[in-house]
């Protein structure tokens, strides 16, 4: 709307300019230069801040680095030529990620990596050492059993623990 409203104004001022008259350009028109809006890309990017916010490697690198400096968080064959089911895999992934995020509340050190090998789902997670090993094993076993029965395929978790998050830089 703004573009169309000022169209006339633009044309008028251009016409005046072409004429080359020394008539004063500001003859009651206010021109507004607009172009199509091109917003800054904000996907999966954490902007530079005060310098006290710790970021992991995963968070610090932007999505256009995937394939160059980052790997993939979800590995399946749905995106190969001639293969189908990519959307189904994505939906399952999202469910699994939210499930794990909620089950291991505050314990995840980084994003969960999901690999599919044959009909098996392997969930690789990096945990913080907040829970005692027995509780952690209980949650792992519970997740595996529940997700296996839910997706009707064997689900395995491979867990590694860290004392605290691995900070790559501070932004």
């Amino acid at each position: 709307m703004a573009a169309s409203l000022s169209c006339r104004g633009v044309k008028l001022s251009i016409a005046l300019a072409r004429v080359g008259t020394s008539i004063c350009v500001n003859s009651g028109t206010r021109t507004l230069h607009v172009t199509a809006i091109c917003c800054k890309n904000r996907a999966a990017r954490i902007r530079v801040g005060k310098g006290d916010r710790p970021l992991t490697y995963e968070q610090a690198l932007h999505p256009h680095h995937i394939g160059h400096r980052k790997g993939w968080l979800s590995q399946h064959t749905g995106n190969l030529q001639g293969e189908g089911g990519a959307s189904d895999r994505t939906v399952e992934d999202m469910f699994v990620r939210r499930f794990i995020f909620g089950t291991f509340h505050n314990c995840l050190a980084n994003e969960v990596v999901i690999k599919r090998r044959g009909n098996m789902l392997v969930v690789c997670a990096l945990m913080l050492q907040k829970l005692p090993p027995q509780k952690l094993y209980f949650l792992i076993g519970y997740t595996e059993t529940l997700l296996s029965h839910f997706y009707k395929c064997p689900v395995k978790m491979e867990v590694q623990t860290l004392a605290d998050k691995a900070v790559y830089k501070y932004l």
Partner: protein
Amino acid sequence: MQALASTVNRDPTAPHYMFQDDPYLTPRTSAEFFALMFFLSSIFLSSTEIILPLPGVWQNDCCVSVLQCLMPETMELCIEEVSEAALLERIMLRKVKAAVDMYDQLLQAGTTVSPDASNDLLDLICLYGDRDPVQDDKPEAEDVEVQEEGRRRKGRLRRASDLVRIVWRENNNAERIFNLLPERDTRAYSALIRGMVKYGAHVKAFNTYTDMLNNRLTADVHTFNALISAAPEVRERYTEKWDLIVDLLNQMNEQKVKPNLLTFNALLKALRRCGSLARAQSLHTLSEMKAMGIAPSLASFDHVLGIFYKADSRGPYINNLIDQVIHAILNVALTLFSLPVNFFSSAMRICLDTKDIEAAYKVHDLLRVGENWRMLGDSFQQSIYYGRMFNLLCMMEHIDVVLKWYKELIPSLYYPNPQGMRDLLQALDTDNRLDMIPQIWKDIRRMGHDNKSDLVDELLSLMARDKHSPEIQESFAVCALDVKSLYEQGQGARMALEWTATAMTNITSVLLAAQKKQQAWDMLKLFKTKNRVPSEELMEEFLASIKSSNDPQHAMELVQISASFCLPSTPKLAERVLQAFELSEEQKSQLKSASEVKSNTESRT
């Protein structure tokens, strides 16, 4: 190539396959290991029983390809009306009580139940001893007599059904239904006899068998197996037992029933209870087996070994029997058996008793043949097996071999108990590798054996005993300081160890030998506060080290301390100090007074 080759076999640094491969999540001590194993095996149970039957879980059936075992299991009864199909369903779901009730209802309603169904029911009741199979630890105690030994959850891998012993009651459902059956065939009798034998009613089993013979029925091989295993219980003397068994075998022959592997195993097991005539007969049995073409299993060999190598007998051992047995196992194709068998742990016990390391290696190699590793039993049996093996190794082998096995077995396969660690320390001592002690101490701490005061004492005395090279002394000193910190405060919830005089003495001498004089002085002061008396050799060592550093003040203090402890060697010490050091007048007079006080107290006592 070598690196690749090393990945083919077992990885000794990896934890058990049930655990996650992470240092924080791997159990460090034997107690943690067993607790975690028991816990892991119960997680699956709790998830499937508590969470999965909840209605909301199965709503989104969103997958295309389906693994049948992960589909929702119907544990609930579907068919409610009184019919034979309902009875069969209950039998299939293993619901003993419900099945019995259904059967009673059917009979009351007047419908005849087919013989197959009633036989199935009888089988079910006899198999489970007239109570529902236990899924968790809540047995129902109303119908059946149950003897419970105290249930312990942590650290025991026995299932609840092992701890609870069922006794065959009088007039229980099995017998009642048996009597109600219109015609009793072989199968019914067989089920009843086997149930009786399984749950301890041996005399009744034999009575039922006579009953069966009177009805002119032939028993089948399973019945005979059960009777043979029950035979030692019903007779007292060895000869009578054997006669009964021979009798049964003859009857088996007459009734043209062919024995199978289970028969021979039952025979050998019964022979273990038959005392002295067991040996000849067992070898006889083995040759019969060969003649009949039945391949023996590890269980048969286990029984044979048990007959020949009784744990407490002092009779002549047949020395190379175990070699022959191993040879036979390697060459004869074995039939694999799924019953828990203690072959490997008893074989290792025999090797330990006869101190035969070669045989032990052969037994260990047997584990790698085919499927034999499955026969090693659960984790508890495994720990017994590896414990005995490690014991034997420490006794018999050179230290390098012991250390190699140590790296392989511990801690991925076996968590040694304090006795095992002491064996290892002795082996180190024998072969003069005491420099490994600090590393072993680290392992002891990790395994949680650092609160066993005798183990710690032995470690300290080994360190303090001889003189070693300076680097070793340094490492010993570090280790000794570590031990000292253990005595001073407990870790977390654990109590600190109690100070003993020997421990303190040893720590002090180790510190002195490593030239850590300040810490040694601190230790000496600690003696006073903890009310323990240092030994005279310790004082001598102190004097020697003070002389080397030429410190008269410390020498004075030493004499005064020794006087305060009323050690008998104080005057001698004082003299030596006088001679060895340049002392001022004041110090000399102090010395004299110190030694006089000593001699005064001596003269008074």
